[in-house]
């Protein structure tokens, strides 16, 4: 068997050979196997895109057409209420535009063995969630006369989160280094160290104090432990992949976020490409539409092949186009023409849009092959 397969190495990709290896019965006659391999090769070569095939436009149309049927604005929750996640067209636009700040960052945290069965799940969840001063304060008052801020702590909430007075004070001190903090009768009094008294500054200070980080993972604003396929996972609103992968109880091999830029930063461009494909495919599947994943792969490749994640915008992949005319035909034409004229760019007319503009045959399909012959003089 192996000998026959070996002949096809290089002719067929490794993954196809592996598929054959897996699905063939152990005992198969040499002639039968050869027959199978011939069919496989025939099918494989038939599936390949032919030279000159306009895969880009076919992909664009294949994604764009079902896109018109997508409900424009769909916010819906995965699992339980109060967790709104952007899906549908807004989400696809967000991904393909390559926006750095997505509207609803979200994570799925998988846990290591004893914890994934529910051990300390509540504790872990609380440990992960970011707690700010505003979350446990029952009252924040401005004392303008003495230019200080007084914060009353809701003791029940603090107890629930297992925050003691000592570590709260410590956290507040690290969060607000330029303030002096005192405790009087359970009331935390914040005072500015510098003397310049400005009533506006104290208002700003109040907002800053509210946001004081106390504990948990920064960026995780909501948590939701869910049982999925017989194990506990934590779904979060807000994302911080880097921090979470460092935690001992987190299963780093399966934990994901929907923030593709974060994945690119932490796990690299290949992971980002996969995440991109998955995220877009999830939305399309969710809408009950059917788009071949290879179209998405092509889009993801275009966005990632430079080693940096680039959106399909005039600042992203369109800027990378070689042709001035092609760039100019997509948004802000004058800017592109002027900058091209300053550097004396040459347009080689190698792509589609430029040739349509000049009314020349576009170099795809029947316009691609050329007759090469010697000129008789």
């Amino acid at each position, binding site marked *: 068997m192996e000998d026959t397969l070996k002949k096809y190495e290089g002719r067929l990709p490794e993954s196809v050979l592996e598929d054959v290896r897996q699905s063939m019965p152990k005992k198969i006659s040499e002639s039968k196997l050869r027959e199978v391999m011939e069919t496989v090769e025939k099918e494989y070569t038939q599936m390949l895109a032919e030279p000159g095939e306009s895969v880009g436009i*076919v992909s664009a*149309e294949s994604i764009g057409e079902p896109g018109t049927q997508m409900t424009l604005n769909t916010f819906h929750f995965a699992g339980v209420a109060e967790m709104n996640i952007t899906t549908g067209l807004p989400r696809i636009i967000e991904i393909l535009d390559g926006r750095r700040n997505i509207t609803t960052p979200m994570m799925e945290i998988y846990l290591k063995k004893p914890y994934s069965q529910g051990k300390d799940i509540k504790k872990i969840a609380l440990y992960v969630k970011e707690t700010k001063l505003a979350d446990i304060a029952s009252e924040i008052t401005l004392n303008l006369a003495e230019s200080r801020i007084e914060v009353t702590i809701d003791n029940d909430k603090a107890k629930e989160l297992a925050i003691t007075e000592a570590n709260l004070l410590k956290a507040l001190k690290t969060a607000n280094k330029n303030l002096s903090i005192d405790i009087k009768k359970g009331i935390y009094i914040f005072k500015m160290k510098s003397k310049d008294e400005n009533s506006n500054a104290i208002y700003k200070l109040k907002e800053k104090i509210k946001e004081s980080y106390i504990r948990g993972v920064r960026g995780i604003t909501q948590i939701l432990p869910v049982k999925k396929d017989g194990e506990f996972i934590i779904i979060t609103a807000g994302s911080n992949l880097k921090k979470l992968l460092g935690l001992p109880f987190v299963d780093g091999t399966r934990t994901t976020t929907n923030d593709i830029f974060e994945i690119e930063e932490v796990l690299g461009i290949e992971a980002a490409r996969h995440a991109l494909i998955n995220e877009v495919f999830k939305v399309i599947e969710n809408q009950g539409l059917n788009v071949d994943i290879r179209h998405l792969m092509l889009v993801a490749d275009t966005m990632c092949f430079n080693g940096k994640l680039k959106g399909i915008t005039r600042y992203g992949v369109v800027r990378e186009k070689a042709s001035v005319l092609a760039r100019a035909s997509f948004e802000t034409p004058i800017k592109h023409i002027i900058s091209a004229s300053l550097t004396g760019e040459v347009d080689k007319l190698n792509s589609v849009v430029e040739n*349509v503009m000049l009314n020349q045959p576009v170099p795809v399909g029947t316009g691609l092959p050329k007759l090469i012959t010697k000129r008789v003089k």
Partner: protein
Amino acid sequence: MVDTFLNGKFIGTTENPLELVRKIVDERRKGILSENVNVSYDKESNEVYIEGAKGRLRRPLIVVRDGKPVLTEQHIKQLEKKEITWSDLVKQGVIEYLDAAEEDNSLVAFFEKDLTPKHTHLEITPLAIFGLITSLVPYANFNSAQKVNTGSKNQKQALGFYAANYPVRMDMDVNLLHYPQSPIVRSVMHSISDYEKHASGQNIVVAVMSYKGYNMEDAVIINKGSIERGLGRGSYYRPMVAEELRYSGGLVDEISIPNKDVKGYKSEKDYRYLEDDGIIYPEAKVKEGDVIIGKTSPPRFLSSMDQYRLASDTRRESSVTMKHGEEGIVDMILITENGEGNKLVQVKIRDERIPEVGDKLTSRHGQKGVVGLIVPHADMPFTASGIVPDLLFSPHGIPSRMTMAHLIELLAGKVGALSGRYVNGTVFDSEPEDALRKELLGLGFRDNGLETMFNGETGEKFTVRIFVGDMYYLKLKHMVANKIHSRARGPIQLLTRQPTEGRAKEGGLRLGEMEKDTYVAHGASLLLKERFDSDRTIVPVCETCGLIAIHDDFKRRDYCPTCGESVEISFIEISYAFKLILDEFKSMCIYPKIQLKSKY
């Protein structure tokens, strides 16, 4: 403390909002306050709003006190004797107008029998919840709201008899229906609005069945015999206007048969219908290109010096002609003066519009469709009693749209037609379906409206029975004759050399950016190039400087305006639009240098 607002402005507070509202309403009913004042208390926001501003939508209701309407039999008798009028009832506080906010505070009974002590108002008639045109939809309460809406919208586009003095009117874009009929199934609004005096449809026999697939996707099939008997036939009128304008320097337009030496003279044939005054005679049959009103204008850009020149008397041709694809008969000619004292000539052209494939028809239930096929009378299916339907309506149009009234009207129309009476189909107050069915049974038909039918071509009996009835059909003003358009060659724009746009200018149909993409996706590169050849040009290019050179056809030489004659000049084929953009670059001081390379 409840905040109180007058016309949206805060005016004060009250301790007892309900008492305040009651007092204002009482005083309004007594006539102390204007009947235009409305007051409401919003529990949610705990605020009282008093409104007297204009622009609120209000509707009249009968006031109810202690579960009894204030309107009594005596009032009605007085009304009948014309002793009192509507406005008297409003003044007496028997009827009052509520706006949307006050309506929220009220409990309105639909019928008098529904009244309880809790009710504050009674509908004058359930019909009053609809507007004038929507009230014309029979059995509308059996339709989905959306279809009642589209049904009433469609009625506004129906052809009819819009004005009795139409022969002497000069309206733009007029359609008239030749044989309008009053509907058999009607609502009280038809009587109230004198509908029979300006009816806009015809009662026809409709069978709900398919026919060779020509009535799929909302199309309808009509009987050619019915068309020949006048179904949906109409006239289309369009005025043509010419005015003797006055220009500076005492020059004027002149309405007359143009001289042969006039600039832009068409041909003698085009002027053949004009009489001595330069205007066409009535009842002339005109086709495209024919001149309706002959007119000449003084030459353009005439400066004071030119007036003394000999050539200055060459006037311009500016006649009013029939446009591309138009034809008709001259109906009426009007010669008058306009406000500035200029001679004004208006000619009305008439054209007969016989229903053809593509014309739009509709029932009154938003069941619009275009004519898909016109079948000879002999080939139409017929019922056992020999009735041949005028129109075949596809059954697929019914389930998803849920226009039950469409079916009920068919049944009711059948009863009306057979018993020779009008059927009352007023919303919420119509003749019940059961009674109609009983009556139909009594007339010797199946009570469900089904009939045995035969194939008109083969004479075979259909295995299923077909729902046949009578209903009121409207012809809508969207007719193919006004919209049909095609072009192979034709006029181009001056600037871009691309085809003009729009039917009036005999324009091309744009192959847009997304359509272009489909050609690329198919790899049909050379076909795409051919599509875009409409503004193709061949330009000489100087190989030295890469700019567009000059080709002098007279002297048979090519030269570059910058590099002179001793340079290589080649001819390239590009779109004229690209030549324009190169010119535009030059105007921005950008040097677009074309580097030529042999393709081979």
